[in-house]
Each structure stands twice: as C-alpha cells, then as structure tokens.
C-alpha cells in the first residue's frame, strides 16, 4: 500500500504543474492586453440608475447591463460613446449615446426622444446601417435597454423628452396631391441632396457630413422593392414624421415650421412615387396617368429653378 503513495505524490506534483501553467497563461493574457496604454479622456462615471416608461412597462437600467454588453457595446462602446471595437469598420457610425442626439423621434428637432421612440427603434433596427432588427428581445428587455442608454448622457437628467408632434389623418392619395408634393420637393430644394429623381445623387450629396463630421449619404428612394424601408420606419406616417421632426445629427432638417400638415402629406405621396419598384397606391395612380405628373398650379410663387443639367425632379419614369 505504501508503495502507491510516492505515485500519488508525483501525480499531485504533476497536477500542480499543469495548474501552474494555466496560472501563468492566465497572468500573461491580461498582462499583454495592457501593453497599449489607454489614452484619451476618461469616460463618464456612471452612478445614477435610470428608468424608462413604455406603456405599462418600466425599464430599469441596472437590469440591462449584461444585455448591453452582450448585444450593443461592440458598436456603441462600453461607455456609450460610439467607440466599440467594431465602430471603426462601420458606415454609418453607431450612435453616440453620450450626446443624446437621436435620429428617429416623434418629438421636435433638438429635443430628446420619447422612451417609446427608442423602444421602437431597437425593435425596428435601422436600415442602411449595421443596426439589426432586435425583435427577439422581450418587451421588458427592450424597456431595460432604453433605460440603460440614458445613463450615458447628462441630458437625460436635465431635460425632459419633447412633446410628440401631432400627425393629422392622412388625406386620400390623388394625382393632385402627388403633383403638389412634387412642387414642394422642388420648392424646398429636397433635390439638392436627394437628387432630382430621389436617387441620393443631388449636387450637394457628396459634401454632406453628420454632426460628428462623418460623411453621410442622403436616402436613395429608388433602391429597394416592396421591402424597402426608411431609417425611421416604413409607413406613410413614418415618412411624415421624418421631415416634420428632422433627422437630428444629420443635415436633414425639420420642415415643421415651413410647411402645413396637409402640404406635408402631399409631399409624402410624391415621395412614394420615387420608390419606383415599390407597389403603392401612389404608383398605381401614377401608372394610370402613364407615369406623367401634371404641373401643379396654385397661387404660390413658382418653384425654384431646376438644376443646371435640366434634370427636373420627377417620379415614376
């Protein structure tokens, strides 16, 4: 019996050596990771828990810490500053939660979005970007993430969310409303960025940058088919909302002070005709008119001159 004890002893020493090796590896990995110093300003110290309120749901930031790290931090960064390890590869860049400027809102330009706005954005994802459709989360998970996003900016302590804009009922789609929308598209100089045919190739398109001086491309209406989406939703109400609230952080301004609600609906109807591959009521009406939008006649001053290359704004061609 005693003869087996030295064997056991050697086994113990062997196991100790293995775990010693593991220990060494464990020490080396983090040590190597620290070779490059962490430069730049220190992130904001996050101490105050935040809440979100979506219907009957209350989200708690403390509950979303793990989910944020698992799903969001790779792009938005551990500190919400859009400096995740993937951010450098992404175009457009991820949202910087530290400045609390959000593109998709129901609230006036310059104001904070409602909790519901952010909640909807998480579930919808953002087309033309790397932001996926996170519709596999539970409602509670999403509400918690909305609360978590708020911890990154002091704006959420100082300000309240803006009051959502009122969206009147949509009037019927008619050729008259499409024609009026086309006139507005010219008058408001939407074509300068979005191009005469809404293909995102207007004369100013190449010069556009966002609020962080990153190049940005205007929306190309002509791309996509029936599944085409806008960044902030796919319904007519969503389009209405986009140009009445603006897309904060981008050159797309709010037109809330420039056009009347019914005029805005006319513009929505015209914009739908720029989605030439999409089945829509607007395109049906246009097709029945052989693709020609008649000139709109009203008492307002004539629209601004067409671009120098005579590419007049149009739709459906």
């Amino acid at each position, binding site marked *: 019996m005693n003869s087996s004890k030295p064997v056991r002893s050697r086994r113990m020493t062997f196991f100790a050596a293995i775990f010693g090796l593991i220990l060494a590896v464990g020490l080396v990995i983090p040590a190597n990771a620290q070779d490059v110093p962490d430069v730049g300003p220190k992130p904001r110290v996050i101490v105050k828990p935040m809440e979100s309120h979506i219907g009957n749901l209350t989200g708690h930031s403390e509950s979303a810490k793990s989910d944020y790290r698992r799903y969001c931090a*790779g792009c938005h960064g551990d500190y919400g500053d859009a400096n995740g390890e993937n951010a450098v590869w992404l175009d457009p860049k991820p949202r910087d939660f530290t400045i609390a400027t959000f593109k998709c809102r129901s609230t006036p330009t310059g104001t904070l979005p409602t909790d519901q706005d952010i909640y909807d954005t998480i579930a919808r994802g953002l087309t033309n*970007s790397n932001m996926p459709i996170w519709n*596999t989360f539970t409602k509670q998970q999403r509400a918690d993430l909305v609360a978590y996003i708020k911890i990154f900016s002091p704006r959420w302590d100082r300000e309240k969310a803006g009051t959502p804009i009122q969206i009147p009922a949509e009037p019927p789609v008619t050729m008259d409303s499409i024609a009026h929308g086309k006139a507005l598209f010219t008058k408001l100089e939407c074509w300068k960025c979005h191009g005469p045919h809404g293909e995102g190739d207007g004369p100013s398109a190449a010069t556009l940058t966002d609020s962080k001086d990153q190049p940005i491309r205007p929306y190309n209406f002509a791309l996509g088919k029936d599944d085409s989406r806008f960044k902030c939703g796919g319904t007519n109400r969503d389009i209405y909302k986009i140009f009445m609230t603006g897309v904060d952080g981008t050159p797309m301004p709010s037109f809330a002070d420039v056009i009347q609600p019914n005029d805005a609906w006319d513009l929505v109807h015209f914009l739908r005709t720029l989605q030439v591959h999409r089945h829509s009521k607007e395109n049906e009406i246009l097709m029945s008119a052989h693709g020609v939008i008649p000139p709109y006649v009203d008492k307002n001053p004539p629209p601004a001159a067409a671009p120098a290359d005579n590419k007049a704004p149009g739709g459906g061609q």
Partner: protein
Amino acid sequence: MHMWTKSHVRQKRQSANSFLVAALALIVLLMGASQSASALPAFARKYGLRCSACHESWPMLNYFGQKFKDNGYQLMNDRDAPIWQNPGYWPVTFRILPIWHRVSSGKQAVDDPTTGGQVEQRITSSGFDISGLDFHTGGTLEKNFSFYVLPSSDATASFHFETVMARLDNVFNSPWLNVKLGKFELDNLLSEKRILTLTGNGGIYQLYHFIPQGDGNVFGQMGDNQLGVEVMGHSVNDRTRYSVALLSSNDGQPGLPYGSEAYSTFIAGSQAFDAGKLGVQRLGFYVMAGEAPTSWLTSGGPNAAIAGSGTGNKGYSREGFVGQFYFGQRFDVQVVTQHGQDSAWFGQGYGDFIDALATNNNTPGTTLPAGSRNPTWNGVLVEPHFVYSPQLIFLARYETIRMSQQSTPGTRADLGNITTYTVGTRYNPFMTSRAGFAWHNEFNIFHQTGTAPLSGTNINTSEVLTGFDFDF
C-alpha cells in the same frame, strides 16, 4: 514510522497546495482578465457584431442567433448580400481544440496472461491531445441565397464533409418558406453541433444517438447530419417555427451506401412565449420516423454486403418534446424528452449490415424468433446553464435513457440503460467580432447498465478535460 508520518503529512500538504494552486489559477483567470464571448468570426466580421450577440455562449445560439440562422445567416437588412463586403472578405472560420484529458473506462476486456483467458479491468489514461479541425464556411451567395460548407477532420487530418448545403431563403418574400438541400443538421432546437461540452460521452447528446443493445439500426441518429431536403419557416420574430425534412436513410453518409429506396422524415415545431422578466420561453416537439433496410445482397461471402443493395425496409421512430426555459438573464434550463421505437427486425440485429453494426442479414425466408418485439425506450436530458456574464458560463447536464421494452423476451429489462452526468465551465477572456477563444473545463461520468463485456455488469466511465477551444 516517524519518517512515514512526516512523509504522509507532506503529501497531504502537497495535495492541499495543489488545490490551492488550482483555485488560485481559476480565480486569477476569472478576475484578472478584465477585458471586455465568442462564434463564427466569419459572420461576426461581416456584420460587425460581437459573438455574444448570437451565442448564449459560443457555439450555443441564443434567440437572436437562432433567428439569424433561420433567416439564412442574414440580419434581414441591406447588408446581407455579399456585395456589401470588402472584396477581401472570405467567409471562413477555423476551429480546433488543444486539450488535456484523463479518461477512465471501467470493465474493459483484457487478456490475462496467467490464465490465458480474459478479465475485466479499468483502463485509465491521460495526456495532452488535439481535436480535429473544422473549416466552417458559410453565409450568403446573394440576398436570400445562403450556403454552408464544413469540411471537418479527425485529429489525424482525415477529412469528411460534415455539412454541405445551399438554401433558398424567404421564398416569395416570406419567412415561412425556406428550402434547404444537401447534408445538414436536423432542426434540433437543442443543437448537438452547438453543444457546449467536449468529452467523449458528454460531448454528444446520448438521446440523439441511442441504439439498444444488439439493435442494428444506425439510421435513427438524429444528432448526425443527414442528407436530404428541408422546408422550414418561422415568424418574423422567430417565435413560431416549423420544419419538415425528407432524408435519405443513410445516416448522412454520401455515396448511397445503404438501401436504394429508404427514406426518413424529421418534423419539428415550436412556439416561444414572452414571459416578462423571466425572458422568452419556448416549447416544441420533434418526430423522426422512417424506414431503413434490413436485407442485403452479398458478394464473396455471406457477410460481404453489397453497398446500395439494401431492401426489406423496416420502420423506426423517435419523438419527443423540447423546452427552453429561461429564468431571468442568467439561468436557463434546456429539456429534451424522447420516446424511441425500432422495428423488431432491428431489435433482432438486422439493419446496418454494411458497417457490421447489424449481425444478421434478412435473406429471403428469414423469420424473426418467436416473441420478438419492437424495442422501445424513453429518455430525457436536462441541461441547466448559469450565465455569469457573456464571458463565463457554468453548465451541467443530466441525461438518462431507460429501455421500456427489450426486443427479446426474457432479456434483462434494464440492459443498455444509460445515465450520464456532465458539469463544466467555459470562459471567454475576450469578446470581439474577430476571433473566439474559450478556456473549457469539463467532467463527465457515464454509466451503462449490464454491458460489461465479460461479466454483463454495469460499466462506469469518467473523463475530465481542460483545454482551449478557439476559432479564427
């Protein structure tokens, strides 16, 4: 005596020291690596997502990852088509595991030089080892055209095709219709190909491979990738899923090695529910049923079966329920049940005569022994996970299979029953979209009733494993 005592004390101290060193090593690794888990880096690189976005712990999928897979490895945004990728992007990931493991197998038949006969003896071995190498390549050929090819080797670099499939995704622009053709994993909610364990007996789901003692049916192993066509569909948010597959009854082996007219089917469906703060719960079912050959033409002797000549198809089935239950963000329990049944022909040793799993050939005029019955069994596996963080998961598994009817009357009722326990941890020291690395630790005990080769007593096998599971 005094010296012996001192030595004994010293050994005890060494033992204590070893535990201390082990504990310290674990603590240092868990606490020291403070970087901010891992996947197919090919997909993560494409979309710029961390591996943890799709994996509860790599390679096991979470709900988002399951939806991504069901959509044909697409996020369903405008970045799905490969045209969006840098031309240098190549959707390939390599995976391999250097490990140390110790395997102790009970009651092995060994020659006894003293008697000239055989005795049963436990054989224990340990050492450093490597796994085979997997080349995962998959993604989209174009929007809504996806593929997956997986050449996989054993540890000596002998390759085979584990997966080869192309898929039409979202046919008619609907997530409810996707068609896959090739060799692929069956639509098991608890995927064995994404199993979190690596030991010999713990690294598979026994339920997915169970064959009763003496049974010749190799064709009902739902854990093996199969050749066939699959139609599957799901709701937009993947809460509702279904799949129907038509498979060749050949256990995924190419070249039509078995019967010429034998087919099987695998049908699965599930529904997930939002349970508030508990998370998303999923309940589902599966059925694998089909026919496989028992009768073979031979050439050059009664045991030299001709490949592809199998006829005399007999039936088999495996069916059960699957549950994925989440209790908050950190704890979940995966449950699979099974009721299995083989034709009495399989139970009597007819079936895969090509690979000699079957011992009998159902030649013309063959009759079954009087009283032969369909072998049936029931089983369950329960696998709880504790996700401490996206980088660290603790897991366990209890799996048991109980024969409910032996094919031959009078056979010991519990012959071949299996019970296995597995515990383990996986720790990912970093989380990026570029590569994956897990420090894996696991212990498995496997118990089978009545299958010792000489005595017919129970067999106990254990394995402990530690290693690095990495992909890049």
